[in-house]
């Protein structure tokens, strides 16, 4: 086939591809496996080939399955993770977390929040006031213990 004829055919194919009706149904893995092993009758094979024509990745899967390449080495960690999927949790009982308590309605939650804030402010105020009184008392006690002449501003050094 000449290049120009091939290009013309390609263009025709593209026109068809962009407008083709959606007929294909994605086959499951078993259907693809049976197709790969030539185990389907004509109608079943037609359905699979319709899907392969639409999704060439499925065609690659079939070809890869037919080639049956040699198995690769399996790292120990990979093996261990796979083995751990079954058996470790056999017979385990599933314990549900206790359900959440019903929360208060929003307006009550808001009132409780502001109330708690107010109570904190009152508590801090009372503590502060108490500490302030104690401090003043301590200052007063100290002042009364100091000799008067030290507080006297007159000059006693003269003379």
């Amino acid at each position: 086939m000449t290049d120009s004829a091939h290009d013309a055919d390609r263009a025709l194919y593209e026109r068809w591809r962009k407008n083709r009706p959606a007929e294909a149904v994605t086959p499951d893995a078993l259907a693809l496996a049976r197709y790969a092993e030539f185990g389907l009758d004509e109608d079943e094979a037609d359905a699979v080939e319709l899907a392969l024509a639409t999704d060439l990745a499925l065609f690659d899967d079939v070809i890869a399955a037919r080639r049956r390449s040699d198995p690769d080495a399996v790292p120990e960690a990979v093996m261990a993770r796979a083995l751990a999927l079954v058996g470790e949790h056999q017979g385990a009982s599933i314990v549900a977390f206790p359900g959440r308590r019903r929360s208060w309605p929003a307006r009550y939650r808001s009132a409780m929040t502001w109330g708690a804030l107010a109570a904190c402010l009152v508590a801090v105020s009372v503590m502060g006031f108490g500490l302030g009184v104690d401090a003043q008392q301590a200052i007063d006690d100290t002042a009364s213990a100091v000799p008067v002449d030290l507080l006297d501003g007159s000059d006693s050094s003269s003379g």
Partner: protein
Amino acid sequence: MEREDLDRLIGGDQTAWGEFVARFAGLIVAAVNRAAVGQPVETADIVQDVFVRLCKDGYRLLRQFDPDRASMSTWLTIVARSVAQDALRRRRAPTQSIDDTAEEHLAVEPVIPERIKIPPGLLSPRQQLVLSLIYEREMEVAEIAAALSVDAQTVRSTHHKAMLKLRAHFKEDD
């Protein structure tokens, strides 16, 4: 795999699972490695994904397998590749910044799609597959013949008949 072994497996027998993993892990690793070749992914995670899918929901996927209709190796290869491709799709960047997009790829003029009614069944499934392999995969006739287990002349004939149908259809439409 014998049906008896499969029944033990989907019955949750831990020994059966161990035997299954030991027997088929290499095949699954190979299938994932080949599906993910050149991709920056952690194939060990994908392999684990495969095993998880096989045993989750009460071995739902394994229950779909019928040892009388296909071999486990073929079926597992297809399952493993499918899981690998799902993983690769998830890892692909979903978006690209418009600033990084070449201007010719931005729509600057409205593109009016051609609307042609093509009746279902215009091309047979085999014809559609041959055309896809020729024009999308750029496969040679001999390669397609080997893949479909037919001779090269059959592929050429299939292609020829398909093109005749398409030319006739589009000529009517034009």
